[in-house]
């Protein structure tokens, strides 16, 4: 089972590594989307500083969402998912492995890009550490919740657009608590409560979302 779990993650990482620029699309989107904000609202640094945490998180959320379609679709279409499902690994753990691989491929690069973009948006330095922690706790939750949307739309023709409709409302709490934490740190209101809630959300997502996603995948495999 351990072999299967890490074999799956290893293969996904290898595929991403060979995907060239295609694998970096998510982070490139993140960078471009964030850089549109100064063009949209004006370059005034006080304004950018004020909206920086929200902008960074909203864009991270959209970037994650855009990459969800790839989580199961390719494996479903070429038959790999059938092979994976017929292994000793329960589908719930398959979902966990896929979500972890998805986070390593998309969430981690976002975390690397985020502080650079925060500098571009003139975000105050008090918020940087908390921004990183909030991303570390929040983006895996996004991958896990996203796995439900990806599994529910696997094999559907218009799956890509549908995922956003399914998943974005569920992302609202992560957005609120993550931005709350960063702003709490910047304005000196304290960030601990928000971060604890984010951590709790991650644990809850770890415990609950694999069941929902696995049920959806079972249905897709029928």
């Amino acid at each position, binding site marked *: 089972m351990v072999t299967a779990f890490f074999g799956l993650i290893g293969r996904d990482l290898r*595929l991403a590594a060979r995907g060239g620029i295609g694998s970096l699309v998510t982070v490139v989107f993140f960078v471009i989307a964030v850089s549109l904000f100064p063009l949209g609202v004006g370059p005034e640094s006080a304004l950018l500083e004020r909206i920086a945490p929200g902008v960074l998180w909203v864009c991270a959320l959209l970037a994650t969402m855009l990459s969800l379609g790839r989580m199961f679709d390719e494996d479903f279409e070429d038959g790999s998912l059938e092979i994976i499902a017929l292994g000793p690994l329960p589908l719930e753990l398959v979902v966990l492995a896929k979500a972890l691989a998805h986070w390593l491929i998309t969430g981690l690069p976002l975390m690397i890009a985020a502080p650079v973009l925060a500098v571009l948006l003139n975000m105050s330095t008090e918020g940087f550490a908390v921004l990183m922690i909030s991303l570390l706790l929040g983006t895996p939750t996004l991958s896990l919740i996203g796995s439900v949307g990806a599994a529910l739309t696997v094999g559907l023709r218009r799956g890509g657009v549908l995922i956003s409709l399914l998943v974005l409302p569920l992302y609202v709490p992560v957005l609120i608590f993550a931005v709350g934490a960063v702003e709490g740190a910047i304005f000196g209101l304290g960030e601990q409560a928000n971060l604890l809630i984010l951590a709790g959300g991650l644990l809850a997502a770890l415990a609950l979302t694999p069941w929902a996603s696995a049920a959806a995948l079972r249905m897709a495999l029928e």
Partner: protein
Amino acid sequence: MNDGTARFAAREVACIRGERPVFRDVSFALEPGAGLILRGPNGSGKSSLIRILAGFLKPAGGMVAWGGENMTVAPEAHNARCHYVGHLEAVKAALTVAEHLAFWAAVKGFAKADDNILAALDLEDLAEVPGRFLSAGQKRRLTLTRLLATPAELWLLDEPSVTLDGQSAARLEAMLAAHRAGGGMAIVATHAEIALPGAETIDMANHGISAAALLGESADAAAGEPDYGTW
């Protein structure tokens, strides 16, 4: 049919896809070394039956059992005992032939695949070639090596010889013979002639569900008291 204690058996299996009944009353019992061929026209449910036997699809009626125990009792044990080769090759453009084998062994829980199996399907020269350069027939052969990469008692093959040339088809037959000689079982759905000496044959055309059964609804209503099922 002594399906109670056979190694692998199906009893009166029925299938509904969506709202469409596909077949019913399919029964068989296989002992180690046995083979079974599924025949029938398009849409008669060969693929659906194979998917039921693989555990992807729940039978609408009847049951499938290992040594008398319903396979849904221990789905992971069932997974470990069977290989499924469907219509899709599961070949990734970016992975080499050797990497495919390693991955397929890994998802079955094995650290590595048997090294010399590529020879069985004449793929040893292609070990380091990425999937995107393989022809349709080569992809098919690659996915068939999955059967040898890790041991499994039951092979479920859905049209395995599609896109194979005569020589490769002969290799597949040799694989099947060796598998059964070693006590394995094979169930093959096919239109083509695949030699499976001594195998039983099920013609799915004999198990269809007629339009009258489909319209059971109106027939019941006409008979007076309708059938509520679980309503």
